[in-house]
C-alpha cells in the first residue's frame, strides 16, 4: 500500500464538512504549530521535508519562504495559487472540492510560518462552484475559531478569503496572479523586483500552489524528516498526479515519488494501461508545457534505465531525451493520436492565453499556430518545419514570463522526436487527412559514458 498524506481521508463520508474533518484529525497541525512552535520552526520543518513547489517549477518551498522580506511594519501576504489552468492538470480542483479544509488548514499554518495576517486563495473563475465550497469551509473555520483574531488564544490573527479569476491561464504565473488580485489585467510583472520583496500591493508576498500548501499539514503533523523519508533523492514526499488521455482509469492519484512510470501507466492501482488495448505512442508527463516523450522514452531513459515518477528521473537526459514532472498533468497518447494535431492544439492554447505584453510571445505564438494549422491540414511545406523550429527558438528565453518558454517547448519537443511525422504531413497531404501516422521509429542515442 502506498502512503497517502493528502488524500488518505478523501473518501470518508462528509469529509468536506467541518465536523467530520475535525473528527478525523483535522486542524491538528494548527494546534501544534501555533501552540508549540515558532514561525521559524515551521519554516525549518518545511526545509527539512525537502518539499518542492507543486505548481510546476519545483522550487524548494522552505527556501522560497526564507527569502520573504520582512521589513518592519509592512504587512506580508500568502497567496494560494488555485488558478490550475495548465492543460492536463486537475488535481487542485479535486483536492479543494473533496477536502477543502485541508487547504484551509495548510493556509493557516503556512501564514503563521510567514507572519502573514491576510491571506488569499486565488482560484480560476471557471471553478466558481469550488469557490463556493471553499467559502463555506472558510465560514466554518471562522465559526470554530481557526480564523479571525487571536486564534486559539495565541495572539495570531489571520483573515482568509477566496477570490476568483475570470478565464486567463496567464494568471497562474505568480506576478500575473498578483496583478489580477489587484483587480487588473493579468499582465506578468517585470522582475526584479520579485514578489518576495514587492508583491501584492507592493508588499512582500509568497505565492504557493494548492498542493504545496496542503502538504505543509502532514509535514507539521509528522515532522519534516518523516516526510523526507518518502520518495527518492530530492523528490520527497507524495505527489498528486492528474492522469488523463487514452488510459483505462483517468483521475487524480496520490503517488509516493518512487514508483516507475511503467507501473504508473500499466498497473491497475493507477492508470490501468492504455485504453482499448492500443499501444502507447507518446506521453506528456507534466502538463502541456513540458516536452512530449515518444513511446520509447516514456518508461525508459535514453540510458536504458527505468524512468521513475520523480523530478529528476523525468528530466533525465535534459530536453534531448527527457521531460519534466511539471504540474503532474500526465497525458497519455495512444497510437491513433496525431502529434501534429496535438501540437497545433497546444499552440493554439498558448496563442489564446498570451497576455500580449511582449513581442516574441504575442506575435510568435500566433505565427506558430498558423504554420502548424497549415501543416496539420495538408498545406504545409517542408521548410515550415525548420521555420517552426526557428520561431520557437526565438521565443524561448526571450520573454517576460515563462509562458513564452511554455509555448516553445512543446513545439520543439514535437519536432525533435516526431520530425518524420511532420514530414509525412507534407509529403502525404491527402493521407494525413484520412489517417494517423502511427508510431514513430525509435532513434538510438549515444548513451553517454562521460
Amino acid at each position: 500500500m502506498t502512503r497517502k498524506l493528502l488524500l488518505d481521508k478523501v473518501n470518508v463520508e462528509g469529509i468536506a464538512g467541518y465536523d467530520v474533518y475535525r473528527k478525523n484529525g483535522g486542524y491538528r497541525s494548527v494546534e501544534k504549530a501555533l501552540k508549540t512552535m515558532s514561525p521559524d520552526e515551521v519554516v525549518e520543518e518545511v526545509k527539512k521535508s525537502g518539499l518542492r513547489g507543486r505548481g510546476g517549477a519545483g522550487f524548494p518551498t522552505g527556501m522560497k519562504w526564507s527569502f520573504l522580506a520582512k521589513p518592519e511594519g509592512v504587512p506580508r501576504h500568502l497567496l494560494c495559487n488555485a488558478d490550475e489552468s495548465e492543460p492536463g492538470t486537475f488535481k487542485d480542483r479535486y483536492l479543494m472540492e473533496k477536502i477543502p479544509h485541508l487547504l484551509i488548514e495548510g493556509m493557516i499554518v503556512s501564514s503563521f510560518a510567514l507572519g502573514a495576517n491576510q491571506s488569499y486563495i486565488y482560484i480560476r473563475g471557471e471553478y466558481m462552484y469550488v469557490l463556493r465550497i471553499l467559502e463555506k469551509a472558510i465560514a466554518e473555520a471562522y465559526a470554530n475559531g481557526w480564523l479571525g483574531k487571536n486564534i486559539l488564544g495565541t495572539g495570531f490573527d489571520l483573515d482568509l478569503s477566496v477570490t476568483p479569476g475570470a478565464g486567463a491561464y496567464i494568471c497562474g504565473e505568480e506576478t500575473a496572479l498578483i496583478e489580477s488580485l489587484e483587480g487588473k489585467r493579468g499582465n506578468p510583472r517585470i522582475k526584479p523586483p520579485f514578489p518576495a520583496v514587492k508583491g501584492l500591493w507592493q508588499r512582500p508576498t509568497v505565492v504557493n500552489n494548492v498542493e504545496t500548501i496542503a502538504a505543509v499539514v502532514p509535514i507539521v503533523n509528522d515532522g519534516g524528516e518523516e516526510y523526507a523519508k518518502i520518495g527518492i533523492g530530492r523528490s520527497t514526499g507524495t505527489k498528486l498526479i492528474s492522469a488523463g488521455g487514452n488510459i483505462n482509469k483517468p483521475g487524480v492519484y496520490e503517488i509516493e515519488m518512487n514508483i516507475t512510470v511503467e507501473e504508473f501507466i500499466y498497473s491497475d492501482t493507477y492508470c490501468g494501461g492504455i485504453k482499448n488495448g492500443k499501444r502507447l505512442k507518446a506521453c506528456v508527463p507534466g502538463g502541456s508545457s513540458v516536452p512530449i516523450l515518444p513511446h520509447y522514452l516514456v518508461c525508459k531513459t535514453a540510458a536504458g534505465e527505468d524512468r521513475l515518477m520523480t523530478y529528476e528521473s523525468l528530466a533525465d537526459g535534459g530536453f534531448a531525451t527527457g521531460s519534466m514532472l511539471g504540474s503532474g498533468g500526465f497525458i497519455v497518447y495512444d497510437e491513433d493520436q496525431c502529434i501534429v494535431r496535438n501540437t497545433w492544439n497546444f499552440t493554439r492554447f498558448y496563442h489564446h492565453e498570451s497576455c500580449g505584453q511582449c513581442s516574441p510571445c504575442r506575435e510568435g505564438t500566433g505565427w506558430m499556430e498558423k504554420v502548424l494549422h497549415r501543416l496539420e491540414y495538408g498545406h504545409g511545406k517542408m521548410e515550415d518545419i525548420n521555420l517552426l523550429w526557428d520561431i520557437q527558438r526565438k521565443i524561448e528565453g526571450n520573454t517576460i514570463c515563462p509562458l513564452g518558454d511554455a509555448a516553445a517547448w512543446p513545439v520543439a519537443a514535437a519536432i525533435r522526436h516526431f520530425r518524420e511525422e511532420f514530414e509525412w504531413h507534407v509529403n502525404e497531404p491527402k493521407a494525413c487527412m484520412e489517417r494517423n501516422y502511427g508510431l514513430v521509429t525509435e532513434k538510438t542515442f549515444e548513451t553517454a559514458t562521460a
Partner: protein
Amino acid sequence: MSETTHSQVSFSDELLKEVNRVIGQFPEGKQKSALIRVLHIAQAEFGWLSVPVMDYVARLLHIQPIEVYEVATFYSMYDTKPVGKVKLEVCRTGPCMIEGAEKIVKYIEDKLGIQDGETTADGIFTLKTVECLGACGYAPMLQAGEKYHEHLTEAKVDELIEAYRKNPVANYMGQETNLNSAKS
C-alpha cells in the same frame, strides 16, 4: 437577442450587500481588488457586460471606466456582447480533444444549428469552445453556468440540452457535481 445595451442598471440591495462583503475582504483603499468578482456578479445579473453595466461597476468601486473595460476585455469568461441564457462551453484543449471533444462540438453545432460562438435564434443557447477547464480526466466535458458536465456522450448532450431548454437557468449555484474521479 435584440438588446444592445442596458438602460436600467443597478443592483438589488441584496447584491449590493454581496458587493460590500467582497470589498470588505481587502484592505482600505484596495477596493479595486474586488473588480473581477463584482464583474462576475454583474454578468450573472445582467447577462452580459454592456457599457452602462461596466460604468456602474466603475462607480461602485470608485475607479475609472477604462480600468473596467481593460479588465472586462482581458478575461475570457466575460461577455461584452449579448449571449444566450445558457452558455455551453465545450473544452477543446488537447486532453479533451483526444477523447472526442471535436465530435461533441460538431454534434452540438448540428443539433442546435449554430456554429461555435453563435447563439440560437430563441436566445437560449450560445455555443463556445473554450480552453482547458481542468477536467481532463473526465473528458470530453462542457461547462454550463457554474456546472461541469463530464464524460459527455451524444446521449448525455441530448439530455442536458433538453433539460436546459425546459429550464434555461445556467446558474446552478450550489448544485452537487458528480465527479467521476479516481478512487483513492
